[in-house]
């Protein structure tokens, strides 16, 4: 019997000819990414080891992105701990440069790799044909010290895409629709693999958006095949060579296969307080908003900013609405600057922020108060995620968020007539 992409990547990392879903294997990791959410905890544990040692410092990438710039003496102290440790130990270190997953995709991830990230959205790397999975800081420490870990080989759910998304409908609407269909634990412990003719119509930005959000269905990882789009992206980002380009074998075992016609996807939102609480935007049209957020590892790329700017050009952000625009990385920020997109946002009354996680995780920027409503391209809408426990977060596409910022209430770009 053949193997899935997930099985092939784990087999490579385990040094085995063949592995099967359900097996537990000891693996060597290609990279270990950690951010300021938990790195200070990893350092504390590391310093308490009797014989602390880093297996391979070149595999470690540390990124400060969750509280940037710092919002309190406490976070300043934890970031200093991270910065000092990285310097002392020669670990690649970034701060203010962008959201961790965007930096990893731009600079590190290569097809065929197995990567642990101390952040749940590490599954984004599947867009580049790599097996990325989120872990906690103890698993991270184990990988940092030993260079490896253990993994349970996941079963695969396969999503076969055909057709093309309609105008005004985005990859974000697609993945939210899928999460709504299978539920917040519909892919728990599973790999979600995306294939089919429809993949050719999706840009690397679309693909990262799709893979990134798979953890909201509980997935261990998300995976896509390497094609011309992948190779062009790699060539444009330092010319990284793939470790291996895997496709699932025709006789590989898939627990379930879903057929999705991209042209059938509609603009949707995730309503408070669950990411699988999906409804067509038209169901919530008219819900008043206080804030809109365009950014995050899910939708803060140049393609998202271009979409937002194309809708906002010549229009204004609604009175009393805060519109935060947060490029996902320095590269994206500079591109947006070069293309004049930031002018469009600023002239319309938006706030353009430095690259960071921002209100997506409810820390240093744009936190909302009791009774307030945010429409966001961020990753989650859990109760209290963006601020007060009695606030409300709707998740939607860059198009829906921008249209809503103009209207002051939730509306799709199509309904508002701004496409």
């Amino acid at each position, binding site marked *: 019997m053949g193997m899935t992409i997930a099985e092939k990547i784990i087999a490579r990392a385990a040094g085995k000819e063949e592995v099967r879903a359900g097996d*537990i294997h000891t693996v060597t990791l290609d990279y270990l990414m950690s951010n300021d*959410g*938990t790195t200070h*905890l990893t350092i504390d*544990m590391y310093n*308490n*080891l*009797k*014989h*602390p*040692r880093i*297996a391979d410092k070149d595999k470690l990438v540390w990124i400060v992105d969750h*509280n940037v710039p710092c919002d*309190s003496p*406490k*976070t300043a102290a*934890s970031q200093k701990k991270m910065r000092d440790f990285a310097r002392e130990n020669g670990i690649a270190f970034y701060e203010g440069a962008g959201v961790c997953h965007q930096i990893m995709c731009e600079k590190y991830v290569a097809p065929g790799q197995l990567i642990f*990230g*101390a*952040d*749940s959205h590490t599954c984004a790397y599947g867009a580049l044909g790599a097996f990325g999975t*989120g*872990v*906690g*800081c*103890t*698993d991270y*420490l*184990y990988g940092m*010290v*030993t260079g490896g870990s*253990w993994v349970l080989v996941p079963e695969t759910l396969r999503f076969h895409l055909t057709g093309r998304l309609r105008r005004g409908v985005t990859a974000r609407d697609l993945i939210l629709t899928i999460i709504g269909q299978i539920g*917040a*634990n519909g892919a*728990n*412990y599973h790999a979600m693999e995306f294939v089919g003719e429809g993949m050719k119509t999706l840009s690397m930005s679309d693909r990262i958006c799709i893979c990134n959000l798979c*953890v909201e269905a*509980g997935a*261990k990882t998300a995976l896509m095949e390497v094609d011309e789009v992948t190779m062009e992206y790699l060539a444009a980002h330092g010319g990284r060579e793939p470790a291996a380009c895997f496709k699932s074998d025709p006789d590989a075992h898939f627990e379930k296969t879903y057929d999705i016609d991209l042209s059938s996807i509609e603009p949707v939102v995730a309503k408070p307080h*669950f990411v699988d609480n999906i409804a067509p935007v038209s169901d919530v049209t008219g819900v008043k908003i206080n804030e809109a957020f365009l950014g995050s590892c899910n939708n803060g790329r140049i393609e998202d900013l271009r979409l937002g700017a194309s809708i906002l050009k010549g229009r204004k952000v609604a009175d009393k609405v805060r519109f935060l625009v947060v490029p996902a990385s320095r590269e994206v920020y500079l591109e947006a600057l070069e293309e004049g997109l930031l002018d469009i946002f600023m002239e319309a009354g938006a706030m353009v922020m430095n690259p960071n996680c921002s209100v997506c*995780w*409810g*820390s240093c920027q744009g936190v909302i108060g009791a009774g307030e409503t945010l429409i966001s391209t961020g990753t*989650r809408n*859990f*109760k*209290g*995620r963006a601020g007060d*426990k009695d606030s409300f977060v709707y998740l939607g596409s860059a198009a829906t968020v921008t249209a809503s910022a103009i209207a002051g209430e939730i509306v799709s770009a199509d309904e508002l007539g701004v496409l």
Partner: protein
Amino acid sequence: MEEFTGKVWLLGDDIDTDIIIPTEYLALKSVKEMAPYGFCPLRPELASKIEPGDIIVAGKNFGCGSSREQAPEVIKALGVRAVIARSYARIFFRNAINNGLLLIENDTLCDDVKEGDTITVRVGESIEYDGRSYPISALPDNLLDILEAGGLVKAMQKLNGVGAADRE
């Protein structure tokens, strides 16, 4: 076989890590300081009422959301002896085991049990409640070893006596 009895706190489906410990408290210096804010977006009173040895019973997908390891740590710091849920999100599952927090899967207890009632857990065998017995499966040995040592770091040190660096 280990056996313990505890009082039940009953929670629903999809208890996410932002509920277990909200972002705004992650900057606190220690898990001990965070513990009083555990579950506060959902049940502000809960953390102050949980007593050592109590058991949390919940529905599906417990611990979904972020990889923040403070989530299982806060539950442990509150003195919770075990969590019994229909299912767990995978990152939380690994984090809990790595921190020595016992997780048990059971599909039906959460429908039957009432908050405040007492249950008895026979680890790897069954849960006893109201004259009924709910079967539970045993964790794989490698995970049990981690739990018994008190977490992954302690298990590493116990295995070789000196620390993870010597395991290669």
